[in-house]
């Protein structure tokens, strides 16, 4: 009897394990990793698109070589276009993939965990709703553009390696390819363009999708599009204009962002492109968009707190 009493009081007095002190950014870091684990399709998809493009590039090699040899060979500007075209098209394809992925990711961001009820598990851990929503927002804002840049660079390097084998075989110089292509400059401009025009500029659209994904019980994209269509319809009826719909549309595809002045070229990575980061930073529409994005994110945090699993 005595022994038993002692045991009980001992266990009552036993000190608890001191908690490991975790830096404040740890939950954010792990929440972002969780998103990447959960959404493997974002990198598998990018790699798949890159591989398909490489195959098409390889098959069309002869067409490209013919262009380089053609009449454009004497005109430096035309020659640059001919040399860089496949690289630019490749980057453009990856850019399009990035837009689609950001769109679909955001539309599912706060919906998936409610649909599979795992939100009840996530909420059983000491991670705040702010942290989770910020981690999710960082995917289209930071992670996806970084991933796209990395995959595009890997794709370009592979294309260069293929070219380095094929060009000498058909009697052309690799040196002129390298000299004309100025690949590092191209990558720098790509990174600049991806972040400014395809991550920060459309960020309010992605935040809106995230907000709706935290609210809708099904068909997130439909509910997200509905107000846009409704406001667009009312505007058309009352004012006979369509500013709202075109504003949302151009934001989404990265159009209208004051990132650069291109001199009639199709791609923003050309040598004549004049970057205008100051004009971009000074644009009220940029800051207005980010303010709207912040409001949407704040609302998304509130929603995650209140909404039950679907």
């Amino acid at each position, binding site marked *: 009897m005595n022994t038993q009493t002692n045991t009980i009081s001992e266990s009552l007095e036993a000190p608890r*394990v001191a908690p490991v002190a975790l830096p404040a950014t740890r939950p954010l870091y792990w929440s972002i990793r969780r998103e990447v684990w959960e959404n493997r399709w974002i990198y598998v998809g990018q790699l798949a698109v890159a591989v398909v493009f490489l195959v098409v590039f390889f098959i069309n090699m002869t067409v490209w070589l013919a262009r380089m040899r053609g009449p454009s060979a004497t005109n430096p500007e035309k020659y640059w276009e001919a040399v860089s075209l496949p690289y630019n098209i490749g980057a453009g394809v990856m850019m399009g993939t990035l837009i689609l992925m950001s769109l679909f990711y955001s539309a599912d961001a706060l919906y998936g965990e409610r649909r599979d009820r795992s939100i009840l598990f996530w909420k059983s851990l000491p991670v705040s709703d702010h942290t989770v929503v910020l981690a999710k927002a960082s995917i289209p804002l930071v992670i996806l553009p970084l991933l796209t840049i990395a995959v595009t660079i890997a794709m370009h390097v592979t294309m260069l390696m293929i070219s380095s084998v094929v060009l000498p075989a058909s009697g052309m110089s690799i040196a002129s390819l390298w000299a004309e292509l100025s690949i590092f400059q191209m990558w720098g401009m790509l990174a600049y363009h991806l972040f400014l025009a395809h991550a920060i500029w459309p960020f309010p659209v992605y935040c809106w999708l995230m907000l709706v994904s935290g609210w809708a019980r099904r068909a997130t994209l439909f509910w997200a599009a509905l107000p846009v269509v409704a406001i667009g319809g009312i505007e058309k009826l009352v004012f006979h204009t369509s500013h709202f719909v075109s504003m949302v549309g151009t934001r989404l595809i990265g159009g209208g962002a004051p990132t650069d002045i291109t001199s009639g070229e199709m791609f923003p990575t050309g040598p004549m492109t004049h970057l205008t980061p100051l004009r971009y930073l000074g644009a009220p529409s940029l800051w207005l968009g980010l303010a709207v994005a912040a409001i949407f994110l704040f609302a998304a945090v509130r929603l995650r707190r209140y909404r039950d699993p679907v």
Partner: protein
Amino acid sequence: MAVIEARGLHKNFGSTIALDGIDLRVDEGRILGLIGPNGAGKTTALNAMLGLTPYDGGLTVLGRDPWREREQLMCDVSFIADVAVLPRWIRVCQLLDYVAGVHPRFDRGKAEGFLAKTSIQLGKKVRELSKGMVAQLHLAVVMAIDARLLVLDEPTLGLDILYRKQFYDSLLNDYFDRTRTIIVTTHQVEEIQHVITDLMFIDRGRIVLSCSMDQFESRYLEVSVNPEKLAAARALKPIHERQVFARSILLFDGVDRQQLATLGEVRTASIADLFVAVIGKQNTASGAA
């Protein structure tokens, strides 16, 4: 020390009253069984305690307001909300990495120790595990967290009898140490009769019975009455009567054991029988009203 203290806890869903002014106090080191029919308000009460839903009235859990301080509270509280809430896409090792990354009181080695006793492989995804294994995995994670309060809402629903038995055995042998507090809700009441230290019945958002299991065992007695003593037994005002193999089984509240022994064979009531007696009577009464 009170781990949970509720005063006039109230919650509406539109015109439906889910919690109708609940007062309760759960002390450290108790294992409370919260029993009630479907829609009685058990999950709502637990969700309020876990900061998953806003509420009216006073409620503190470990001295904190759960709705305002959920994040901090979750350092000291663990819960299993249902059998299948672990994300199906996650790998077992990723799950351990993640919890170790975000939880200051998680002991990864301990979790791996628990998992080593099961057939769960670290490289498997949750979707590749059976329902019973998912429950084992969730329990292993939760038991490796040095929490002060553990809340289990139907933790064994849909599991086969072996997993259910194992679940409570591990909980008692490897986890519970009298400084922790556990709240469990379940429909499989017979399984937790020997696990819990306190019992609470909840019906239509109100607590209709609350006692410790010590009180329960001395207070609620069931007698398999000898046919000739039936009239005498009924005179002692049983709270419930049922027929088993043509013998009447009467359930008494607070009648002396010695006195009952003269009427027939006496035994401690089961929670299930008391549940039928208390909740069944309530429903009949309100149905008649």
